[in-house]
């Protein structure tokens, strides 16, 4: 029984959180909020999520007692929760699977994501391939250069990739430039 109960119905964690977006996004966020409320406790949805976490990601990730690290630090025992052993190599995939399964439930054949270093982009492209969803990943021009291996991974996974020029860092969410200035590095993936 969880006593801590946050956020409130409008997404506030005390004075934080909330919904500060342009009017044009309110409808989409409201649809998402309603659908997530419908599915977050739905046994069928949760079973589907658990199945992919087990069979696709390889969960549960082990906990490992780092004995030699403990000796070096000299004191309390250090244990590691091994999210690095997940498929795609990080915790990010837990979340992209959840959201992609929700997209499928909502009847959305296309997912988009923004990525800086590329890890979230790769995790999104991965589950999009697994579920046969069209995937577009937006990335800043500078990051595309710096993260060439991740850009290639996304390409291998069939993601359509868009860059936006001269976007300041941290420009996610609000100042997205149109995709037209970028160029896809692969053919449009099939959406079978």
């Amino acid at each position, binding site marked *: 029984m*969880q006593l801590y109960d*946050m956020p409130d119905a409008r997404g*506030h*964690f*005390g*004075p*934080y*959180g*909330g*919904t*500060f977006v342009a009017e*044009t*996004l309110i409808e*989409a*966020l409201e649809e*998402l*909020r309603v659908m*997530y409320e419908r599915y977050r406790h739905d046994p069928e949805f949760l079973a589907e*999520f658990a199945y992919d976490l087990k069979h696709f990601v390889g969960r549960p*990730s082990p*906990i490992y*007692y*780092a004995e030699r*690290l403990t000796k*070096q*630090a*000299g*004191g*309390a*025992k250090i*244990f*590691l*929760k091994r*999210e*690095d*052993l997940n498929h795609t*190599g*990080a*915790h*990010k995939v*837990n*979340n992209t699977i*959840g959201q992609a399964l*929700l997209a499928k439930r909502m009847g*959305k*054949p*296309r*997912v*988009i*994501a923004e*990525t*800086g270093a590329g890890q979230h982009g790769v*995790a*999104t492209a991965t589950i999009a391939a697994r579920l046969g969803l069209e995937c577009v990943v937006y990335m800043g021009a500078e990051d595309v250069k710096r993260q060439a291996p*991740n850009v290639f991974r996304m390409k291998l996974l069939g993601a359509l990739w868009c860059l936006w020029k001269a976007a300041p*860092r*941290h420009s996610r*969410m*609000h100042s997205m430039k149109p*995709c037209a200035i970028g160029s896809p590095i692969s053919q449009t993936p099939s959406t079978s």
Partner: protein
Amino acid sequence: MRDWVTNISDTFYIIGTVAGPHPYPMMVRDFQAVIGIEAKEQMQEMIGRQPDAVVACVGGGSNAMGIFYPYIDVENVRLIGVEAAGHGIESGKHAAPLTANSPAGVLHGNRTYLMQDENGQIIETHSVSAGLDYPGVGPEHAWLKDIKRAEYVAITDDEAMEAFHTLCRTEGIIPALESSHAIAHAMKLAATMSPDQVVLVNLSGRGDKDINTVANLAGITL
């Protein structure tokens, strides 16, 4: 965002961390909570109790929320988020809004603590780790700081690099540079605790993606 507005009927926007407008911070936390749910069971099985402290790195904060959330109601488990101190908090070149006591503001659809100048403009951040290089933090972390349920500290680039090499050599595990921040703090913390106490670290990712960065810093071209 513009893509989403234009293609709202057939498109789902996937956010990668516990930020963005409602319901994203809650939804991403819920999906990542599998980390903490498993950890509670596994710790019980391995040592017959829960750890004294749980340590995780915080950029936006999704791996930390994932392991913290199921522990929020568990008494006597310290929750410690590790931000990126970059070149040092006092240098201003960091990505640690909580540790640096940055004021609150609005970014990416939510209100939270934000690195900003006196006019409220977002300031440039720095971390050796791309995944922690973010001027804000998930709004739930801001709340957990305020209610003092979680503590937030910061680790510099140099300390994280040292922890990266230490974990490689002592355990045969190459950690992500993000996770190396958590390892660095866990080692410091463990040294102040007794051998019968336990620190659980969320090793959020592997470091294969970072070997070019590490090599470059050492003046090596791969």
